[in-house]
């Protein structure tokens, strides 16, 4: 079955982002397809490559990146939500005259249209919110 996930929770202050990751991993292990994962609201914070959690804590960013690489996942970060939270790709860094881009590898910034498309194209849509 074709799934899309909406991740709408901060990876730092809620368990939800980690639940979403476990769910995505299990979907793939069970042979399902993930059309897209759309990060929205504080959910976009996981796509900051500067994230450096303490060694005894899981790094959700690298977990998502590895999963995406293995399964060629489409990880889309809401551009409006990301830019206002300082998560920028090269284009946006240039546009807003910021020194560095910090969008992590494997993620892409795009608009809410990608969410609408994911809803239309998937058999199931599940929101992980907090």
């Amino acid at each position, binding site marked *: *079955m074709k799934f899309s996930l909406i991740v709408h929770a901060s990876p730092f202050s809620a*368990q*939800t982002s980690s639940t979403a990751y476990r*769910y995505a991993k*299990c979907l793939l292990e069970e042979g399902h397809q993930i059309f897209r994962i759309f990060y929205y609201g504080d959910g976009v914070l996981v796509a900051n490559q500067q994230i450096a959690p303490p060694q005894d804590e899981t790094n959700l960013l690298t977990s998502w990146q590895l999963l995406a690489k293995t399964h060629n996942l489409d990880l889309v970060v809401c551009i409006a939500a990301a830019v206002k939270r300082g998560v920028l790709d090269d284009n946006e860094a240039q546009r807003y005259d910021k020194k560095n881009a910090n969008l992590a590898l494997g993620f892409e910034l795009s608009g809410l249209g990608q969410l609408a498309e994911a809803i239309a194209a998937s058999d199931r*849509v*599940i*929101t992980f*919110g907090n």
Partner: protein
Amino acid sequence: MTLHVINKTPQNKSLYLNMLNGLSSGDAILLIEDAVYSALEAHQSLFKALSPDDIQLSALEADIQARGLEDKLSPRFSSVNDQGFVKLSCEHDKIVSWY
């Protein structure tokens, strides 16, 4: 048929009320994260209006274990693992998250 996924403690009464109002016969409720506390016997009044033949009640195993609730849950709830979560998602034609 809808899978209702809720992740807040039973203290969030109006969230539970809204979810219960959204239930149709054949729907299922899955408690995840902090919502697994709602599976304690002491909170079963939340679900008293539901007939067990009508609405399937489950709670996510990893969250139950993490919170020390494994031997403390109401028998109305079955424990499901992550595969069970995925299976419930497939068996119902949409998923509503209450958070």
